[in-house]
């Protein structure tokens, strides 16, 4: 299939990436080539995928003390009063 610039732009928006003109050109070409190659999957008959995965061993959901809180917070790009700071997500949040 042809990968148009508009399609790449839509995918980029879904993935929250803003691409430069040059990136859009290059990535459209690369994606188009890849997607064309993926057409071979159309020959695979049936869609059932069975249940090959082993069931995971679950652990008990128990509360345990963690000393990581402050250390984790120290990795955040912007923090105030023990909270992570971001632009507003309501009202002025843009098209989220």
């Amino acid at each position: 299939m042809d990968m148009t610039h508009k399609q790449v732009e839509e995918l980029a928006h879904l993935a929250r990436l803003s691409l430069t003109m040059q990136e859009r050109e290059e990535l459209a070409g690369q994606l188009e080539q890849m997607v064309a190659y993926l057409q071979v999957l159309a020959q695979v008959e049936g869609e059932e995928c069975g249940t090959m995965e082993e069931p995971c061993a679950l652990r008990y959901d128990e509360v345990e003390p963690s000393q990581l809180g402050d250390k984790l917070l120290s990795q955040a790009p912007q923090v105030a009063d023990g909270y992570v700071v971001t632009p507003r997500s309501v009202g002025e949040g843009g098209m989220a």
Partner: protein
Amino acid sequence: MKLTHLTALELGRAIAAGDVTIPQATQAALEEMARRDKSLHSCITILAEQAMERAETLQQGLKPGRSPLYGVPLLLKDNLCTQGVRTTCGSKMLEHYVPPYHATVVERVESAGGVCLGKGNLDEFAMGSTTETSYFGSTRNPWDESRVPGGSSGGCAAAVAAGLVWYALGSDTGGSIRQPAGYCGLTGIKPTYGTVSRYGLVAYASSFDQVGPLCRDAADCAAVLDVIQGRDCRDSTTVDGGYGGLLASLAGDLRGLRVGVPVECFGEGLHPQVANRVKEVARVLEHRGATVVELSIGELNWVIPAYYVLASAEASSNLARYDGVKYGFRAKEYHNLTQMYENTRSQGFGKETKARILLGTFVLSAGYYEAYYQKALAVKHRVAKAMERAFETCDVLLTPVTPTTAPKLGESLANPMEMYLSDLYTVPANLAGLPALSMPCGVDGQGLPVGAQLVGPRFGEGVLLNAAYAYQQETDYHTYVPRGGEG
């Protein structure tokens, strides 16, 4: 023989016997790094001071009965979380990220007395086959510095091959341990999915990712796997494989072993010199008592498209977490939340990562999910079944690791499609969750290492390691040292 050319187990024995001290070994490795790593660029972070301090402490705790790897210096791929030491994943996104915890495998090698010398370079978020997509620059192959070391664990492979460390822990999603091991003349193993904990391994494609060792020979791989394998309550996909003691069970007896050679892996695209070297492995194994059978696994023709659909889909989901909020890079300029996400991700990720995120987003999007993602899942299932059937008639499969030896720097990125196709021999083991080992089987006309791959049934690590061990008793390719590493 030069200290840095010993195997990890040989060094462990020398340390235990008191012939070498841990600080001496650590110092020797750090000196080698200082001499060679400016041009090789195998490490993103070198922990010189920290490693020397730890070496002194470990030396004081030396006593009989310690792990066979006690005191042996190693390198960790920089997608394994290390408490207090930055873990970049080869990305600008995590350039300054300092994890507050250790990955389980890091805890395990430390408990066994490992001395971590640094963090190995890798393709950004382990996405690549050359280590050229790293934000921190390319690693070079110690066998020929105009060539790539492979990827994505290319920094680890180059460092072990060049004698900068005695072993390394890498990760393998589609061949990222085996392919660089092949290009650099090392023995590396991707364990059965669920054998080694992924806790603290930064996720690329969670249903394929697996941590494993890159070493100089099969015995070293067995020793490292003994240390890192096992159930972990922090990774619910780990299982108790019921093995261990891999090193102790190496015997080299191959009588009765059935080696399957899939015809699909010796067809078009395979360089004749690589094919010849790998076929020679079959003859050596036969000489040691194995029987060789040819077989066909038609499903192998679909593995590349299925792998890239599934791996990209999982990557696009896993990498959604890098949004500039909780950790990692955040763009400086933005006017609202969406723009902050977009600018952060656009400036923080490199081109190859963006390409895979977009591909993953595409195959998961409405209208394409059934045509690509579901079909790829069906292929995954079929490949697993086909491999199960193959293991009814043989005990291990023998294939090349890659169609060619290491390409020149820049060649692969100029043609990404060709780079993806070169994963043909390694991805089936990831799709089916099987163990697979890469070992050196000679050199091509230019003196570059050729790798042979052995694939086994679930939890068949012991069989693979034993076959490789027997092969390495019969040959000396694993002892070859790259030019520049001698002296």
